[in-house]
């Protein structure tokens, strides 16, 4: 709760965030980074500097509109993988931290949740493979789906379904 409050205060005291043009990646404090994405609406992450999971708020300019929460943050290949979940999508964003400056690398939706009760988790495996673990309510067996994430081509392709 304190974290959310902090970020709200931060938003209101930093007009640069809400008047952002196109894409801005900005480290805001030693502890948090606010990521503002595209003009008109933005995705705001509270990202712990050390890559530990925290709650997040995804919202558009005009007040609370669309929320997501960070499900997990993984560090692999010097990149920060932030996995989020909203009512519609399980997705991810990849950041890199160079000289105290955050850089957005890529991101994408991975699983349309369709307001289902599916519980989805992701793990980064060797070679940049994102592996999804999915459990539907009532099912004890987790389904897994793997995605290959290629930094050069910025392509995710589904590798296999089990």
């Amino acid at each position, binding site marked *: 709760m304190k974290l959310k409050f902090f970020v709200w205060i931060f938003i209101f005291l930093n007009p640069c965030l809400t008047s952002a043009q196109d894409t801005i990646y900005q480290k805001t404090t030693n502890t948090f980074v606010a990521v503002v994405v595209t003009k008109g609406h933005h995705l705001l992450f509270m990202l712990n500097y050390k890559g530990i999971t925290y709650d997040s708020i995804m919202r*558009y300019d005009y007040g609370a*509109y*669309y929320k997501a929460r960070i499900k997990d943050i993984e560090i692999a290949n010097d990149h920060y993988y932030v996995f989020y979940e909203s*009512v*519609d999508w399980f997705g991810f964003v990849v950041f890199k931290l160079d000289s105290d400056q955050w850089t957005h690398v890529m991101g994408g*939706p991975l699983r*349309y*949740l369709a307001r289902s009760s599916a519980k989805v988790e992701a793990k980064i495996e060797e070679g940049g493979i994102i592996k999804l673990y999915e459990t539907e309510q009532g099912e004890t067996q987790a389904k897994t789906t793997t995605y290959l994430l290629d930094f050069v081509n910025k392509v995710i392709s589904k590798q296999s379904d089990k």
Partner: protein
Amino acid sequence: MKKHISCLALLNLTIICMGLTSTISAQTEGLTLVRVEFWQPKESGADYWVRIKEDGLSGIEISGANKTKAWVSTASGAVQKPVAYVSGCKPRIGACFKQLGEDIEETACGDSTDPNAPPSANYSKFYVRGKVVDQGGQPTGMSLPAKQVVKAVADGVYEYVAESTTTAFSKGKVRYIDKFRVKWEWSYSLSPTATWLEAGISENRLYVTHKKPISPTPYFYTCLHLGCSEANNMTQESSVMSKIYNQFATKCVKRVDDADCLKYWGSPEWTRENRDLKHLLENASGDKYEDGRCGAWAVFIDSVLAVQGLKGNQVNAIAYDPANADGTIGVFDDNLKETFLSKASQFFNNVTLLPPLNDPVNPTNLPMDNLYSINHLPGEGVRLLFHGRIASPIGGGPTKLLIVSQFFVKNWDFSAGEQKFYAVLPQGLPLEIKAPNGTIVQTIHGADTGGEPAQGNPDPTSNFDDHVLYKYGSKYYDPSYGSGPFTDKASWVMGSLSAYGTLLTYVNTLGFPNSIVWVYQKTKTSNTETIKFTIK
């Protein structure tokens, strides 16, 4: 004469002395109330005993299968539990006492005697009776008959074996008594002239339902409390329903003894997983619970009514054609699907944002938002995902593309017209659709003008594949929004929906999904048949 006066004085003195002796004896030897248990009724049994469980995920039963310790004296004060009966029955109440001055805890009472068992011969010298009194201490007319109490196993402990009250709860009348008080008294005798002294007053919540609950299984405490407190003193089924729904209509329904309004889609990122009534009634700290979807709200009112013995039905609402899908979603028929795909191809430029469709009606290369169709996102090129799936129609036949329909709950600004695309954003907010090279292909605008206020939420999510309503009698209720009753489907549609269409997802160049809706038709009285109702 003087002699007679002296004799009378002596007699009076003797009587006074006897009285004093009796009072002193009572004060040193009397009974003090330790525990009160409510039992299922004698005549009507389990059918008239309403079982209660804690709200939320734990579901721990508050009441027992056939009795509840409703009042227990402890060193830190009385512990109380609610009890509930069905109207028309006589509650059955038992109690445990300790001898005045004894330092005995409730555990010494042990298990109470089954009132259905043969009477004990281990009677004590004490008699006990109970009077149900109001908040002013005045008798209500309901009482527990005087009878001899039995000795318990522990020394100095006595039991008033559960007994039915002298009068029954009025048949059909709902009651909520926040403090059901029983004044307990003891005496040495059943003689009409016997002195009765107070042993204590028990106090607990007591509920009386309109009729027998639909199911004998325990009900969430809030479901019982809400029904009885709102419909208190009602005797007619229609009044019970009306009073209960009045509370839903406030859009601020609360858990028992809680101050917060339960929410409808209050925290969407959590609500998605909150599918059940137990999630809606869970009060764990944080934003995760006390929140539910339409299904949970329909189950909620169903459960509140079921405790009162009232039965309605959940109603599933979808748009367009359920026959081609699995019966739980609405889909476009082939003509509408072709129209939609054609419009989408034109609008979003099929060269850059979606592939040229290999079939105008059932394309197999159309990216969809289900798990198995988002390959190559967010790579170059394809950036639109359609709301659909590949499936076989009900009854068999070849697989085909199903475009899943949506309807849009008020309020939206679709003034740009029908068969148009709008962003799921606040009204007027631009959403730029870009080709991979950054060129803006289209700019569409947000159309959400603020949702229809719903339970605990002034502006909930408002585009859905389906919605769950509740039908009671011949009328429809929408408990999620506290709206209704609606006399028919058309009334609900016109009062609740802005338009019909479907959903798309545009993945922007940074890989973030943005929701877009395609409005095929705005709602009007002539097209309310677009919505299909299915009784669950």
